């Protein structure tokens, strides 16, 4: 009987223990979700032969959304890192920023057009 009681006690303790772990985990995850920053989509307009804003501050995981509101085709290009390809007037392109750092970019067709993404973690 003693062994049975002990076994029941251990089982009850285990259940309670797991319940605490589960609740703790839920609390941890809940706290974690509340503290994490929601992903943000940042918009960059290409207008009058410039990127607007020219300097964009983002967090890693955010999305940058370029829209060509100009009269001529453009690109958003960082050689070796990303390239929107041809963006005719009225078109858009998006990029998810995967790493922190400063990403200077330009228009492949109009090198005088320059922009910068400043990504922090």
């Amino acid at each position, binding site marked *: 009987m003693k062994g049975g009681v002990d076994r029941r006690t251990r089982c009850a303790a285990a259940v309670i223990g797991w319940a605490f772990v589960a609740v703790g985990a839920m609390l941890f995850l809940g706290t974690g979700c509340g503290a994490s920053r929601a992903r943000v989509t940042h918009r960059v307009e290409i207008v009058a032969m410039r990127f607007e804003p020219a300097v964009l501050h983002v967090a890693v995981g955010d999305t940058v959304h370029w829209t060509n509101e100009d*009269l*001529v*085709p453009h690109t958003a290009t960082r050689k070796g890192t990303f390239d929107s390809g041809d963006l005719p007037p009225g078109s858009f392109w998006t990029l998810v920023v995967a790493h922190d750092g400063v990403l200077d970019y330009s228009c492949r067709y109009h090198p005088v057009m320059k922009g910068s993404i400043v990504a922090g973690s």
Partner: protein
Amino acid sequence: MNSLIESPRAAFVALALSIALMTPLTVRAESAAPEKDAAKLTDARIAAIVLAANTIDVENGNLAIAKSKTSSVRDFAKQMIRDHTSVNEKAAALAARLNVVPEKSPASLSLVATAETTRDKMRKLSGAAFDRAYVNNEVSYHQAVIDLLDQTLVPGAENKDLKALLVNVRPAFVAHLEHAKMIQRTLIK
């Protein structure tokens, strides 16, 4: 080198100034003699000038693609074809939306005639001489069109959407001018 290629800017500036000088007179004399109407600047005529100005540079670009072997010149020419074709598509779409039928005028015809003469001269050139003539003309031409926009077309446009198009296209012409000047410096002997 012939004088048209050496100083195309003078021709375009003269054209721009002549239109600029004519416009106030014709605005005041709208009901005057019919011959005065030839110089009147309407939205339909402005649309035709815009279309002609862009088409001229597309054709200049096509000539450069056909004749030049210099990568910077060819890349610039491709950019001119791409950009000015795009602007013309926007201008034509706007004119259609506004029910404005582009109307040729002495100004647009003069612009086209001067450009054709310049291209005829350039066709006779080759190699570095052609590159310099083409790029020099691009510098002069874009400056002349910017002057035309500032002094005549933008002030003369009545429809606000047409005026906005003219204002919005200006930065492209300025960027082209700066790019052409940059190439010009590399072509100086």
